[in-house]
Each structure stands twice: as structure tokens, then as C-alpha cells.
């Protein structure tokens, strides 16, 4: 009797396991297949792309990548993205860390309110401010400049940066900075020579996280820096897609998509554990 039931149970378990497997497999394929297809298409010649979406190219057309890089202007957009992203991070991280350090270690009257005001920036939609921001940038002649875009990126990355770094500074033992102060270090020397270096893991996480977001950013750049000269990579690719939609070098366009994606995937792959933790912390608190 008992063994009969367990045979039946095993049978049910088997069916359940295969259903679960089918569900998970279908999901995984739906994530991976489009990405594989994109990569495959990026090394095919245009006639091959039309002939069959899954056909392999006779020989891989690596020239698609050099065409995208040179003739389609991806190199220029890539450089713009690199400049804006790097400049943002280089300024954002120190000033974010400075503010976070104050919030974590030097509470004052109203500091909670100020911290809350910063955190509020993590949830409200950017389009609420898009018109006033556009007007502000236009009246200060920062519209359509890399400097203007950088400053806006800094401003809109501050909430998340301060949120993560404040949490990080709070986890560092208090004895360290207290000892430094007692030894006669000034507040700022304590920060730059003791606490800032200790916060390196936190700074790296914040840098990676903001870096990916800025590298991918589209909406603000579309409104604030849309000339050929200042277009970042996402804008450049979007433009290329529009121009090439009906005719043109589709292989090169797909190569362009791969070029945008690769740096992000590499960084994600290296730091995926940290990225998960940070996304979660941000998501659940925010």
C-alpha cells in the first residue's frame, strides 16, 4: 500500500519536475535567443540576413564591426559616451561620498529631512521636470553641451549614490575615525586619508552601478544633448536604426547594437554578485 502510493507520488513529482523544467527552459530560451540572434546577425551580410534569420553566414563578416565603428560614426558616439560617463563618475563619487559621510557620521538638526529630500529623488519620474529642466539648461546656455549633460547626470545620480554610500559608511567601525580625530587629524584629513580609502568597495559598487545606468541613458540625453556633435551612444544607435530601417547596412546596425551591449555585459558579468546586492538594497529601501 505504502509503496504503491510512493510510486504514484514519484510519478506526480516527475510530471511536476518536467513541467517546471519546461517552464524554466522556455523562459531561459526567450531571454537568450534574441541576444544570440542579434550577435549572429551582426556578422552576416545583408543578403544573408534576408535569406534566413537563423542561417549561418558563409564566412563571418567582421567588417560589419569596422563599418559600424568608422562609416556609421559609432566611434564618435562611443567617445562621447565615454567622456560624459567618466566625467560624471569622477565628480559624482567624491561629492556623493562627502555628503554621505556627513549623513552617516555628523548628524545635525534637519539632517534627516535633508537626507529624505535626497532619497525622494530616487522615486519621482524624470519627465516631471523635463520641461523646466530644458528651460533651465537653455537659459544657462548649457543645452546641447557635454558639460550640461554631465551636470544633469551628476544631479540625478546623487540620490542613489548618497543612499548607498551613507549605508556603507554606517557599517564602518566608529573607532577608526574617532581615533584619527583624537590623534589630531582634522575632520577632512580623517575623511580623505582614513574613511574614503576604506569605503573603496562601496565606491566601486556605486561607480559600476551608475556607470551602467549612464552608459545606457536615453531620455535625458534625447532632450538635453541631441546634436550630431554631442550625441551619446544610445542616441547615435537610435538614430542609425531610424536611418537604416528601410534600406542600408543592417549588418553594421546590428554590430552597433552589439558594441553598445558588450561593455555593459562584461562589467555586469564581473561584478554580478555586487550588482544584485545593490539593486536589491536600492529597490527595497527606495
Amino acid at each position, binding site marked *: 500500500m505504502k509503496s504503491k502510493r510512493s510510486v504514484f507520488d514519484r510519478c506526480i513529482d516527475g510530471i*511536476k519536475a518536467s513541467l*517546471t*523544467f519546461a*517552464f*524554466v527552459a522556455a*523562459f*531561459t530560451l*526567450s*531571454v537568450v535567443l*534574441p541576444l544570440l*540572434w542579434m550577435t549572429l*546577425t551582426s556578422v552576416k551580410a545583408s543578403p544573408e540576413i*534576408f535569406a534566413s*534569420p537563423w542561417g549561418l553566414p558563409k564566412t563571418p563578416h567582421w567588417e560589419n564591426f569596422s563599418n559600424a565603428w568608422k562609416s556609421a560614426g559609432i566611434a564618435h558616439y562611443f567617445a562621447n559616451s565615454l567622456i560624459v560617463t567618466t566625467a560624471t563618475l569622477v565628480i559624482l563619487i567624491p*561629492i556623493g561620498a*562627502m*555628503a554621505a*559621510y*556627513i549623513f552617516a557620521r*555628523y548628524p*545635525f538638526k534637519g539632517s534627516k529631512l535633508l537626507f529624505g529630500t535626497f532619497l525622494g*529623488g530616487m522615486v*519621482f*519620474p524624470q*519627465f*516631471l*521636470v*523635463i*520641461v*523646466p*529642466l*530644458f*528651460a*533651465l539648461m537653455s537659459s544657462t546656455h548649457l543645452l546641447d553641451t557635454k558639460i550640461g549633460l554631465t*551636470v544633469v547626470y*551628476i*544631479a540625478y545620480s*546623487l540620490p542613489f549614490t548618497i543612499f548607498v554610500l551613507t549605508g556603507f559608511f554606517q557599517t564602518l567601525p566608529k573607532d577608526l575615525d574617532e581615533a584619527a580625530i583624537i590623534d589630531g587629524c*582634522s*575632520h*577632512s584629513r580623517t*575623511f580623505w586619508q582614513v574613511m574614503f580609502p576604506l569605503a573603496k568597495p562601496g565606491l566601486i559598487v556605486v561607480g559600476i552601478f551608475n556607470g551602467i545606468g549612464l*552608459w*545606457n541613458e*536615453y531620455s535625458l540625453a534625447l532632450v538635453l544633448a541631441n546634436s550630431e556633435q554631442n550625441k551619446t*551612444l544610445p542616441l547615435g*544607435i*537610435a538614430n542609425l*536604426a531610424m536611418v537604416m*530601417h528601410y534600406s542600408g547596412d*543592417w549588418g553594421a*546596425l546590428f554590430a552597433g547594437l552589439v558594441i*553598445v*551591449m558588450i561593455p555593459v*555585459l562584461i562589467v555586469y*558579468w564581473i561584478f554580478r554578485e555586487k550588482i*544584485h546586492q545593490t539593486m*536589491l538594497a536600492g*529597490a*527595497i529601501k527606495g
Partner: protein
Amino acid sequence: MRNRGRTAFIITYLAPAVLIYAVFVIWPVLQAFGFSMFKWSGLSQNKKFVGFDNFKQLFHDKIFWVSLLHNAWIFLFGGSIILLVGLGIAHAMQGEGKFTKALRSVYLFPNIMSLVVVAVLWQFIYNPRMGLLNSFIELFGKQKQRFDMLGTPGTALPGVIITFIWYAAGFYIMLFAAGIRQIPEEVVEASKLDGAQGFVRFKKITLPLLWSVGRISLVYLVINTLNVFALVFLMTTGGPDRKTEVMLTYLYEQAFVNSDYGAATALAVANFVIVMAVSGLILRITRKNPVGEVR
């Protein structure tokens, strides 16, 4: 004496962040509410105070209601599928098999990609001349005419919703997976001893304990679906015939095509209020865990 140094230190270290944030975030937010009360076209200096006229106009604007309806569809259809898939995959992902490990490393890929890449990629997947979709349909027999998903009024919005699900699901899987991991081992063990199996265990143990994660997910879905922009703008620009128009693509058109800044800002404020109201409502409705707090 030490106190004076302290105050100066606090001020100098907060100043850069506070200044940039105040000028480029706080000030525009405050202005947004003001701008929505002005008739203001082009970047001219002539603004005319019109009170709530922009909002009255918006209220009678059919395109606005159509856009809002499309946002609602994306929330209802996209959101419910995302919740189901998110919950299911997060649940299935708990094991230690090789396959689940592989899944754990790829499920977040779409979410960290640029929306531009996602939008262009899916435009080509749906492309009638060479896309994956048509080659898939042809597996089941040759058709007379190739199917143009995004160009056909009836299927354009579903096309966008599918892409949205593909892009966004990973984030919710991550939330649910974290929620499941927080369920104490003892509770799971006890339920096993009590004979709670598979789906019963999922319903009686996993689901109630995920209540708070579920609430957070719902609020994120409200925010993300009512604020869809780049995906729609890049895939269809709201077309064909406004069949995929959403609030923010319409806002973009009003502001940067029609240069009607007053109307655009009123729309932005309305969008903000709607998001806040719906999120608040959802948090209120779901405040009470029907199974009781299990902490």
C-alpha cells in the same frame, strides 16, 4: 572650539551635492507645478497665467485619455504576466541544479541592457521582411502575407507589451527570489513535515510570506508602466495612428514637437499625481496581509 570646526566641515562637505541637487532637481520640480499654470509656447518669454486651464484642456483631450488607457493596458497585462513569471521563475530558481545556476546568471541580462538596444532589437524581431517572429510563424506553414506586428493597429500595443515584459521581468524575478530566500528554513522544513507539498506549500507558505515583496513589486510596476517612454518612443513613436501612444510619448510630442510647454507640464504633473495616487491606493488596499503577519 571643536564644535565650530565641525559646523564648517559639515557645511563645506554637503555644499557641492546640495547645490547641484537644489539647482538641477529641486528647483525644476517646484517649477513644474508653476509652469503647468501658464500658457507658454516656444521658448519665448511670454508666459501668460491661465490657472487650471491647461488641466481643463487636458481633461477634454481625447489623446490624453487614449494614452492613459494604453498605460493601463501595459500595467494590467504586462504587469500581471510579469508577476506570474517573476514568481514562478523565482520559485523554480531556488534549486542547485546546473540549469538553474545558468538561469541565475542570465535572467537579469535584458534589464541591464540599454533600452535603445532592446527597442531596436525587438523592432527587428517583429520586422516583416526578416524578423524572427515571421520565421517562427512560418514553421507552422507558409502565409500569403508577412505579418507586420508593430505596423498593424490591433497588434502594435501587444507587441510593445511583450517587449516590456522581456525587458522588465528580470528585476521582479530578482525581488521575488530575494523574498523567497528570506523565508526561514525552519518554516519550510516544518511545512514539509506537515505534509505540505508543491503547490500547497507554495500557496500556504511561500505566497503569504512574500506579501511585502509583492506590494513593493506592484508599486514598482505602477511607476514603471505609467512612465514608459523610451521603449514606445523608439519602437513605434506612439503609432500606428496613436494605437501605442502613452502619456510620456504624448508629453514629449506636446513639449518638443508642438512647443506647447504649458500643456506638456500640465501633463507631466497629471502623470505624477496619477502615479502617486495609484501607488498610494495599492499600498492602502494591500496594507493588511490576509493571512496575517508571519514575522
